[in-house]
């Protein structure tokens, strides 16, 4: 059997897309200093809303917009928690994940009368979103390192006090990029629905977390983060072929095992933004 082929590379790209959207999203948050592990739930929320809106409106484009919108809303709420209420970033993110997981079961029953999945819905050609991703990755790379906003973003995540004294509004910057993270997670979710033609509650299946891992492996840089996500997609594609050869229980573990191994090698070597996860307390009276 021809396991390795050009076809495999193409399938890999498709499988990597949701991971890469999340990786890109997490990158903006963390560069601003906010950890968002709620990306998993945000992507699921995007998928859920995309399914529901497509179901009722019959418009795949409207569904896409709704997915982005819900992502932005969740990103905004996360930012308010972390920036203004100084909640623990990880706890706030976990809350989103739990909330959305519950909501997915509840709303699928309400809308389709099925627990955890939808009927098939109208969808776009998923390749539209793949191309969008590729464009965004390049734009993000340029944005981060060549534009003034990118520079400000990096300073906010590294040394918020320096940013503040340089006349940059740290709080507003953090909120804005957290919203952007949400939007990208929404796109990840929308892609999954358009790819499958329906919603299922398990469709994100850890891809949000793997997106975070890809971003770390990519050392907080858009193009390397994309490549790390692509590696995941590639192994995922490969394991699907291998299912004929080895038991699927084992092959399906491969992408996750790979993630753990690669992460173990990279963790501690990445240039983590210095102020990541720390609230910025503006000295005021």
């Amino acid at each position, binding site marked *: 059997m021809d396991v390795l082929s050009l076809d495999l590379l193409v399938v890999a790209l498709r499988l990597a897309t949701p991971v890469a959207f999340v990786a890109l999203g997490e990158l903006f948050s963390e560069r601003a200093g906010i950890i968002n592990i709620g990306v998993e739930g945000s992507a699921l929320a995007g998928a859920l809303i995309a399914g529901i809106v497509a179901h009722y409106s019959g418009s795949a484009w409207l569904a896409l917009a709704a997915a982005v919108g819900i992502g932005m809303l969740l990103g905004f709420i996360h930012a308010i928690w972390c920036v203004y209420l100084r909640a623990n970033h990880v706890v706030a993110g976990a809350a989103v994940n739990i909330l959305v997981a519950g909501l997915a079961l509840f709303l699928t029953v309400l809308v389709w009368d099925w627990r955890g999945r939808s009927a098939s819905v109208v969808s776009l050609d998923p390749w539209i979103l793949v191309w969008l991703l590729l464009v965004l990755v390049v734009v993000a790379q340029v944005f981060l390192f060549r*534009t003034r906003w990118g520079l400000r973003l990096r*300073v906010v995540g590294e040394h918020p006090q320096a940013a503040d004294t340089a006349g*940059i509004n740290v709080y507003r910057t953090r909120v804005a990029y957290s919203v952007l993270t949400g939007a990208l997670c929404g796109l990840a979710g929308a892609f999954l629905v358009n790819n499958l033609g329906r919603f299922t509650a398990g469709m994100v299946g850890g891809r949000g977390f793997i997106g975070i891992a890809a971003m770390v492996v990519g050392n907080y840089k858009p193009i390397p983060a994309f490549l790390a996500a692509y590696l995941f997609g590639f192994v995922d594609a490969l394991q699907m072929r291998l299912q004929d050869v080895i038991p699927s229980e084992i092959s399906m573990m491969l992408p996750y095992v790979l993630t753990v191994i690669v992460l173990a090698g990279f963790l501690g070597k990445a240039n983590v933004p210095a102020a990541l996860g720390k609230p910025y307390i503006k*000295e*005021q009276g």
Partner: protein
Amino acid sequence: MNERERSVRGEAVRMEGIVKRFPGVTANAGIDLSLNYGEVHGLLGENGAGKTVLMSVLYGLYRPSEGQIYLEGNPVSIDSPAVAIRAGIGMVHQHFMLVPRLTVADNMVVGWETSRGPFLDRKRIRKRIKELSEQYGLEVDPDSAVEELSVGEQQRVEILKALYRGAEVLILDEPTATLPEQEVEAFFTTIRAMRDEGKAMVFITHKLREALTICDRVTVLRKGEKVGTVPTTDATEAQLAEMMVGREVVFEVQRDRVASEGRPLLQVEGLSAVDDRNVPAVEGVDLTVHDHEILGVAGVQGNGQTELVEAICGLRSAVQGHVMLNGEAVTGSSPRKMAEAGLVHIPEDRHRRGLVLNFSVAENAILGRQYEAPFAIGHVGQSKRAIAGYARELVERFSVVVPGVRTPARALSGGNQQRVILARELDRKPKVIVAAQPTRGLDVAGIEFVWEQLLAMRREGAGILLVSMDLDELMTLADRLVVMYQGKLVGEHRPGETDKQQIGLLMLGGAVETS
């Protein structure tokens, strides 16, 4: 506007009746300050007098509780640094506001970028930095990362950063506190160049001699109130000191010669260590500190002193060599073991190593002893009462100015933060004290206080390793003096037998002579 016009432009800033209250403290109690173009205006006062707060109000970091600021005669409300920058006000902070990982150029322009469309115009930025560097004699390489720069270079970056933003009013908060003596003159040349350009500058310092040298007028604050503004032409050091403290200050330290018994307390043999970037920073250092003795280590910052101190105190692993405490090998022991064996450390970076800024003064006062009775109850409990009581006693004994022991350490003035650290470490009755820049940023009374404390410890028999940039301090306190240059110790001297010039020369790598 040309230069001539600028210098006759008159009053740049007038602050009227500025009041700034924090919970429990009035940091500024109705202060008036007038600042002219073409003037260097000194701002003096003891630790906690309110200098930084007053300037933070001018820079938009704090909103005043009362009072009004005028820029060129117009009332303004400066509620953020962004507004201040746009109004032509720049500030070089007591603690630098630079991102270590970014380049000099990026640090300089962030928030005020020169761009072509959305893109940073790195070519024009570099050109502008070069122009400013040349104009004011502030040499830096725009492309090197800030983490690779010495303190002096970082300071140049900070000044250039303000100039890049078009600052006409420049606030300098203790710029010379971290500057090696050899670089102060060059720094003053820059200040004079800026003054001749017509810029208005506020210069905060604890060194009265510097204030008299470089300032045109000085304003003295005491406990949040303004004592007065005087022209430096007819002021003396003694007079200024009296204004600051409210009483006459004697600049003399009782320095009784106690004979050492010659018992070595701290012995370091062939110690080598690398810095954070794995570059050798300390190379084969030998030194011995005896009982009743202060061994001074002079040197320009960045010659391995930081790494030497950390390697001795167990905060950095030694590549080679031994450290012996009281005859026992302690190389590589944990700081806790070190402290229990009688060695305490007064760190040079009080924010990174000395205090947990978000913790209260009380919690900071027992850091490192949290497991001891009466602070700990069993293995998990902590006695808040014992901790607070002890902290109150320390605050009292070491004259820390603080509203209460539950105030977070970050709300203390720089000098008072240092007092908390000193109080904590010296109260452990150590046999060996490793003190790095212990008087940096302290006012006259504070310096006097630390010196007295160190000498008292010495009288009681402690051995002290004193690392300092301040040659006067070393000449006053040290029994023996060594110079650290590029990771090695060069020459040993007895203060009194050598002069400052000779040591200064050694610090810059001048000929090593064995006397």
